């Protein structure tokens, strides 16, 4: 393992040379991720790794791509999507136009899941899904809507557990081990790079989803990000987080109302 002091040095140098602040990321996970690239790329002295990061912007980019955790799934946590389908989408459907934001969307599996839900609720035509991530490489994958075919069995099971009634395979074309999702879905998506640590609000949304991103941030950064979401959310809009995340330490209670046991809150004032 690398030493704590080495990790802190890396954080400082990255900030100094590239302006990116990892200082508010939770250390336990960050340290494992940094050690993982360090080993993967065959380094044996931290000093060499550090100077590579400092002097080679391409390598710096690779390192950032590798230390962000991009694991994601379609219809992860089916019960979440069930509530979305039954309770949230009908409410959003009363609006003439629906704006959604997936913050930390990774390779887009969640965004395509959402588009499928909107389509089945008859709302996709009047929706626009903004999807952002700090990692430019994952956004490229997301834009293409191409996922490994071998995942489709699990995803169609998740889809059914989430109350899906259709034949899941109608949403993609299978070809040489890949599944390419229909353009009809991706037409309603706008992808762009956005850093939750330093970038500001860019629109007003009816629903913001940021699932399994805040777990990588310390309390103070979580507070800032939740406030960014609050600024970007219309009154009566919805905020959704990962199953183990909460807004309760970040925002005054009474401003948001939680949906049963799910990690979905409605902004009530």
């Amino acid at each position, binding site marked *: 393992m690398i030493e704590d002091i080495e990790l802190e040095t890396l954080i400082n140098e990255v900030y100094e040379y590239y302006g990116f602040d990892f200082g508010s990321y939770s250390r336990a996970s960050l340290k494992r991720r940094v050690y993982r690239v360090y080993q993967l790329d065959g380094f044996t002295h931290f000093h060499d790794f550090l100077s590579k990061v400092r002097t080679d912007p391409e390598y710096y980019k690779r390192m950032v791509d590798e230390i962000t955790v991009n694991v994601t799934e379609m219809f992860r946590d089916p019960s979440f999507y069930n509530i979305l389908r039954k309770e949230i989408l009908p409410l959003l459907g009363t609006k003439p136009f629906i704006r959604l934001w997936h913050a930390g969307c990774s390779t887009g599996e969640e965004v395509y899941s959402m588009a499928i839900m909107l389509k089945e609720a008859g709302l996709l035509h009047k929706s626009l899904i903004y999807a952002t991530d700090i990692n430019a490489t994952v956004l490229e994958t997301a834009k293409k809507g191409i996922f490994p075919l071998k995942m489709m069995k699990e995803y169609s099971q998740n889809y059914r557990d989430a109350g899906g009634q259709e034949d899941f395979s109608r949403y993609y074309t299978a070809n040489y081990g890949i599944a390419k999702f229909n353009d009809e879905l991706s037409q309603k998506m706008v992808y762009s790079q956005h850093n939750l640590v330093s970038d500001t609000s860019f629109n007003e949304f009816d629903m913001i989803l940021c699932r399994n991103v805040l777990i990588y941030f310390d309390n103070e950064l979580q507070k800032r990000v939740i406030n960014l979401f609050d600024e970007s959310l219309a009154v009566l809009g919805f905020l959704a987080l990962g199953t*183990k995340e909460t807004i309760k330490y970040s925002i005054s209670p009474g401003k948001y109302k939680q949906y049963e046991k799910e990690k979905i809150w409605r902004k009530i004032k």
Partner: protein
Amino acid sequence: MEENKIIVNCKVVIIGGSAGSLNALMQILPSLNKLNNFAIVIVVHRKSTDDQTLEELITLKSSIPVKAIEDKTILKSGFVYVAPSNYHLLFEKDDTLALDTSEKINYSRPSIDVSFESAAEVYTDSLVGILFSGSNTDGTQGLKAIKAAGGTIVVQNPLSADMPFMPNNAILFSSPDYVLNNKEILDLLNSINT
């Protein structure tokens, strides 16, 4: 093996297990006394749909208060904590717990190795690691990390394990301080910090 199993200055007991470990835990946890200035953290492989049941089962059967783990849950002595499925469980220096959705390790999330290694870094010689029944190799690397950091490692006697593969693997590749059956593990836990 040593006869007088006295462990002092223990802050955390971390328990790992896979197939068959629930049985063992249900034999042990109900008879546990109040935890003497330490916390127990349980990391077992299970299906995501079973998330609540283990917590409920322990609450039902034992008098030790149980806490489900969420992002940044604070680890306090006297409580049993259960790792959620589908996340890796990590330990921070400020006694909070962290969750991470990165790739499965040893086909598992939570991975016992990941949690054991992370706990070893933070709690060094005030950590006790116990590995129970299972049918894969997860946990062995983690036990080695705990031992290397000065902690105490215990493996369930494979003869009393439903699935002896995991404890056998650990005995083969780490050097456990103790190999014990369920009753002995219970006695050990009750004697900690006394």
